[in-house]
């Protein structure tokens, strides 16, 4: 700790802080332009200059100068004021001052400072630039005439996002920010640069000319897409979400968002939303009153007796899931499941078997301090982009060693010094086993308190790094190096992302990852963690609340099979579109056709079109409640807007159903939380007041494993087929929901089949050619996207798009053997 005096105030602060940070902690105001909390000190704008008695004779930039013992700082004097004013005059020399039409007007740092320092006229004259605006993309508008060259966009894109779209070009007065070769911006459009820009040089295009910042009501909520649980601050006006506001004060994400979070909100305002309940009459879905719809649904359930199944989505709040569970009790059925039934549930089961817990063992911010990181599946960055940014920071700030077990390259592979353990499709388990083998073999394992070590050792015999490397087509030394790094790191993280497109061997994968976590001591050690990341906003909540089949109940796949065979009479789908997103389309189709089907959704999804009753539900922006994210953080949603038409929140709909069934239901989400907390393990001590702006992590930063059981898992053999199709998630989309949002659609509007250059050359395909993939079960076709990230013989397609009908050929296998035909 260091003692210093700022403006006569005695201050004690940590010795790593700068003068600015010390002042800010103590509510002493120093103006800044280029400083940003999450970026490294920069010191370019020179607005934050202060006087330090020990360094008389010149002014000191407070944002870059570390505090020293006994420092005496003055933050304002006539000289300081004059210099700051001159700096502002300099900045205004070539600034266009088009505040009336600039969307930043009202929250512009330059405007505020100009006002504060009364820079009424500039004594200087200089050239105003007339640089062309960059509107090449639908997300980010770049108007470099307004730029003050604080470099925040350059830095955030490099330091946090790890993409590096921007750089300074030219010299002197003509210096400007540009993209490579000064072309239009073409990046992954996460919009971090937009959120950091202190002026109107970078603006969100969807919000262009929509409103003034002061007209917006800000509502903090939690992003409804992935399990990362980022805080999104809705900018609401006229009962519409106009934009997502920058907020680095609340939540886990430090103000960072991905394209989905920042630009994918528009589905909320979509005019295709369901606004009235629909009931099938004479074979046609017709609008109906709520009473009629509820009565029809309940009647259908009653007719089915115990033969009812409920499949819920994982974008429901904990409170709503609680009601779903109550409903299953009220209906007297144990056929309850969520999100395809496999994937994330399988992962948690695997973890339960080995560690005795069903969730990530640590929190995201800890990863920033990790020395070694292992990401399983290259899609990690694409399913949980903001967590990917944390990994990037760990690498850049902490020189963490990153390894990726992947069947294709991805963004993570591009990070500095990242090591990709590339393997043939479907062989993650083999690589994980090989890592365990190296650790055991080289005596690096932390074996204390582990059960089943001998069995594991025996089972690992066949998985020496060399054998596995040869099988998967990788490099044995790389595997060994990764194993040593993981075992030797003080803090390490193993990350495993999961979602609907990966239904195969999910449990085994979790076990293999847990084995590795146990052998390296990562599980349960302070600062280290095994991270399981569910695909949806509340995947973890659904597991915590046990939206799972009861004792004799059926899981989702079994329910669909049973419904197809007529065994199950009624199905209730809450926020789920199995027809598009579940594997094995014919099975799903048959099930939905044969059963009495009630669908609750915000759009008339393909599944809803087959329903007998459709309930119009509400989006995340319209409801209150809590989500539990992938690090066990319970966070509150707040109501931003009213639902369109007669649409109701899932909570309200479930209340109606429960009442119709003659059961009582909690009156409000808050009340529901109280009840659910009482009966959910881990939530017992949690009350809503504890869920503050940073949420509440149940189980604490480091969740102690209840078991330390090593369980051998067998690897797989690669497919022999020449061409194999991988199914996965694309960065711009999440589930099927984002295909209704303008933002993600503007980036990727239609399904595609991605293939490597070699294959493209061999098959004589170029971008946008139509490619048909044939299998025994059927065929799909989509446009071709040629990229460099796929190995030879491997294709990739995202599962989000209904029109692809991917599940005609996808039935949950790790890789699909296909025969490509150019159309």
């Amino acid at each position, binding site marked *: 700790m260091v003692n210093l005096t700022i403006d006569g105030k005695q201050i004690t602060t940590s010795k790593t802080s700068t003068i600015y940070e010390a002042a800010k902690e103590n509510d002493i105001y120093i103006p800044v332009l280029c400083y940003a909390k999450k970026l490294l000190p920069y010191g370019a704008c020179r607005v934050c200059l202060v006087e330090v008695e020990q360094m008389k004779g010149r002014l000191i930039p407070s944002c870059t100068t570390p505090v020293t013992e006994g420092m005496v700082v003055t933050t304002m004097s006539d000289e300081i004021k004059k210099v700051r004013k001159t700096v502002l005059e300099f900045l205004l020399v070539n600034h266009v001052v088009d*505040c*009336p*039409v600039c969307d930043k*007007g009202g929250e512009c740092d330059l405007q505020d400072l100009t006002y504060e320092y009364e820079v009424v006229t500039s004594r200087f004259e200089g050239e105003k630039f007339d640089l062309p*605006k960059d*509107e090449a993309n639908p997300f980010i508008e770049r108007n470099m005439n307004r730029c003050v060259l604080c470099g925040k966009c350059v830095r955030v894109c490099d330091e946090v996002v790890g993409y590096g779209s921007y750089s300074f070009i030219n010299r002197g007065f003509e210096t400007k920010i540009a993209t490579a070769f000064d072309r239009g911006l073409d990046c992954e459009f996460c919009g971090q640069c937009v959120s950091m820009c202190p002026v109107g040089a970078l603006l969100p295009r969807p919000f262009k*000319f*929509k409103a*003034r910042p002061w*007209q917006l009501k800000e509502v903090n909520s939690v992003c409804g897409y992935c399990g990362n649980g980022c805080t999104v601050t809705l900018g609401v006006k006229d009962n519409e979400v106009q934009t997502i506001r920058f907020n680095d004060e609340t939540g886990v994400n430090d103000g960072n968002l991905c394209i989905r979070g920042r630009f994918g909100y528009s589905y909320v305002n979509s005019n295709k939303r369901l606004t009235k309940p629909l009931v099938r009459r004479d074979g046609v879905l017709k609008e109906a009153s709520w009473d009629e719809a509820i009565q029809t649904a309940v009647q259908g359930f009653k007719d089915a007796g115990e033969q009812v199944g409920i499949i819920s989505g994982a974008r429901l709040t904990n409170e709503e899931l609680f009601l779903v569970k109550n409903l299953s009790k009220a209906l007297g059925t144990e056929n309850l499941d969520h999100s395809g039934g496999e994937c994330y549930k399988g992962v948690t089961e695997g973890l339960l078997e080995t560690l005795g817990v069903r969730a990530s063992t640590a929190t995201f911010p800890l990863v920033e301090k990790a020395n070694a990181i292992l990401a399983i599946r290259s899609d990690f960055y694409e399913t949980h982009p903001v967590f990917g940014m944390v990994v990037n920071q760990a690498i850049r700030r902490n020189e963490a060693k990153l390894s990726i077990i992947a069947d294709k390259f991805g963004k993570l592979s591009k990070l500095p010094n990242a090591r990709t353990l590339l393997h043939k499709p479907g062989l993650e388990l083999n690589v994980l086993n090989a890592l365990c083998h190296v650790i055991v073999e080289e005596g690096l394992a932390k074996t204390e308190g582990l059960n089943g070590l001998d069995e594991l050792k025996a089972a690992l015999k066949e998985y020496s790094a060399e054998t596995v490397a040869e099988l998967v087509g990788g490099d044995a030394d790389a595997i060994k190096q990764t194993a040593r790094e993981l075992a030797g790191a003080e803090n390490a993280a193993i990350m495993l992302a999961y979602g609907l497109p990966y239904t195969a061997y999910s449990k085994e994968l979790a076990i293999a990852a847990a084995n590795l976590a146990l052998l390296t001591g990562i599980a349960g050690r302070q600062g280290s963690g095994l991270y399981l990341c569910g695909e949806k906003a509340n995947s973890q909540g659904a597991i915590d609340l046990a939206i799972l089949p009861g004792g004799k109940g059926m899981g989702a796949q079994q329910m669909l099979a049973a419904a197809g065979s007529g065994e199950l009479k009624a199905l209730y789908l809450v926020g789920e579109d199995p027809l598009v997103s579940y594997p094995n389309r014919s099975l799903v189709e048959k099930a939905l056709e044969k059963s009495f089907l009630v669908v609750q959704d915000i759009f008339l999804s393909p599944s809803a079109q087959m329903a007998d009753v459709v309930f119009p539900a509400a989006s995340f922006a319209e409801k209150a409640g809590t989500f539990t994210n992938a690090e066990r953080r319970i966070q509150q949603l707040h109501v931003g807007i009213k639902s369109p038409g007669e649409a109701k929140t899932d909570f309200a709909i479930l209340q109606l159903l429960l009442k119709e069934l003659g059961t009582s239901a909690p009156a409000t989400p808050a009340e529901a939380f109280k009840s659910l907390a009482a009966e959910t393990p881990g939530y017992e001590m949690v009350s809503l007041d504890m869920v503050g702006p940073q949420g509440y992590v149940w189980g604490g930063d480091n969740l102690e494993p209840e078991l330390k059981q090593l369980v051998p898992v067998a690897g797989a053999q690669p497919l022999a087929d020449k061409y194999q199709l991988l199914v996965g998630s694309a960065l711009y989309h999440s589930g099927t929901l984002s295909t209704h949002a303008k933002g993600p659609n503007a980036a990727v509007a239609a399904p595609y089949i991605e293939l490597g250059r070699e294959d493209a050359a061999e098959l004589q395909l170029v971008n946008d050619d139509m490619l048909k993939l044939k299998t025994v079960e059927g065929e799909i076709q989509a446009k071709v996207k040629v990229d460099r990230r796929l190995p030879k013989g491997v294709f990739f397609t995202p599962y989000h798009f209904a029109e692809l009908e991917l599940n005609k050929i996808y039935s949950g296998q790790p890789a699909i053997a296909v025969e490509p035909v150019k159309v």
Partner: protein
Amino acid sequence: MFKEFAKGLSITLKHLLPGNCTTVQYPKQKLEMSPRFRGLHRLVPTQHREKCVACYLCPTVCPAKCITVESAENEKGEKYPKVYEIDLLRCIFCGYCVEACPVEAIEMTDAYELANFKREDFNFDKERLLKS
């Protein structure tokens, strides 16, 4: 006392004489307003469009909250008021909107005959304001 009485009456009588009358024969005769008079608003047109750039300062400053602006992007990519309405029934003619305007797009004319028959007629939209 009588003297004062006569004096007062003489003033009255004087004003009865032609040319000394202060009554304005409205509506036959109309007063000329002072340049600072705050009458009906007018949106200033330019050659191609309204001068207004829809910066939202007038609705923000308006104490009566009688101005409705909705901005949009025109085909040239410029910001323009898709909707600009003043509810004259709420307007208090304070002139803050004129003062706040950064581009001098709104001014107040000397029109004061604002009576009308229907409530809707007091709602001045962009077209009416441009013509006023």
